[in-house]
């Protein structure tokens, strides 16, 4: 006779008030599309840990791409983001020139770092170059 299955998981399973970095990235992807009338989209790609066995301690990797569907779907990686199960701190690697790595210890800190990266001359230059080449 089969025994009844009991749910042994805690009542407060999966409750968190922390906004994960990837949610912030997705918000910013949508904001970029809105700001440019859909001419440039932000695309967030999350990759599982198994692709990076050499980087223990950072099981989550998220990439943020700039994408211009109306310019032959041109894509350019702006940054990637690594963090552990704690969600913060995050390690942000800027992929345009000059490449560098920035740490953010909290959600607020991460938003500050993102705003700084979005304001960099190279980021602005790439976006301007894409916008100027899309036929209207």
């Amino acid at each position, binding site marked *: 006779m089969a025994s009844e299955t009991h749910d042994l998981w805690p009542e407060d399973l999966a409750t968190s008030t922390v906004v994960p970095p990837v949610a912030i990235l997705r918000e910013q992807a*949508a904001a970029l*599309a*809105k700001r440019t*009338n*859909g*001419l440039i*989209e932000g*695309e*967030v790609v999350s990759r599982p840990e198994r692709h990076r066995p050499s980087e223990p301690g950072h099981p989550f990797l998220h990439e943020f791409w700039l*994408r211009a*569907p*109306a*310019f*032959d*779907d041109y894509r350019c990686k702006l940054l990637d983001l690594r963090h552990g199960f704690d969600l913060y701190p995050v390690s942000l690697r800027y992929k345009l020139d000059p490449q560098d790595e920035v740490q953010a210890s909290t959600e607020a800190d991460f938003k500050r770092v993102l705003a700084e990266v979005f304001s960099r001359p190279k980021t602005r230059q790439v976006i301007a170059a894409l916008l100027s080449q*899309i*036929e*209207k």
Partner: protein
Amino acid sequence: MATFLFWNVNGKPLEEIVRNLARGHDVDVLILVESTIPPGRMLETLNRGGRRMYHFAYPSLQRMAIYMRYSLARHHVIDEDRGTRVTIREITIPLGIPILLVAAHLPSKLRWSNQSQTLWCPRIADRIRRAEEAVGHSNTVLVGDLNMNPFDDGLIGANGLHATMARDVARKGTRRVLREDFPYFYNPMWPLLGDAGIGRPSGTYYHRRGQPVEFFWNMFDQVLIRPALLDLFRNEELTIVTDDGSTRLLSGAGRPRKKTVSDHLPVAFTVDL
């Protein structure tokens, strides 16, 4: 629920009318063919003052453009073929089921004979079946300027698009011909063909030549639905569009205004996904 609008814009810069149609019909997926409107301009026009953004879904087919209010992440190209002039996309509607959108612009009767059109349809049907196998479902909507009427052999034939006028026939799923099963499409355009709809056009495309056989009105722009979506599709939500709220797409004589607008009328429909 997802609302679709398809229109052959006849190579005209009709972005303002397209925008009005998209707004007026609350369109989620907009498919244009014979479009020479640069996607950048169309996006800016569509998104001007809009609450929900349109995204350009980058078809590589010549003069075809798909814009949708779903994130590009919800959309995947399954098959796209310049030869058959068909693109097949899987779109996952938020809180809905995934659908396979087949958008087509098939060769014109002005250049291809009926026999050539008929012979081409099995290639398209095969691509659709392969795409359905690849995604694991047949929640398929085919929409396009098929350049054939609902009664043409390419639409009717079992190894063609196999599109029947009757829901109860389509609901059987497949039909066996010489030991092979062929899946049905349901073709809801049939009731719109002719004068049954008082005050409505009798087709989507009007053409008159000096030949003995002439239909005048043709239903080249069609939507076909696989049986899996039959219960989610209501015929009363399928319309041949005749104005954008401010511009009439028909002349005073009731024909498409081909010189100033387009020789085709748009088709709008909703699937309750």
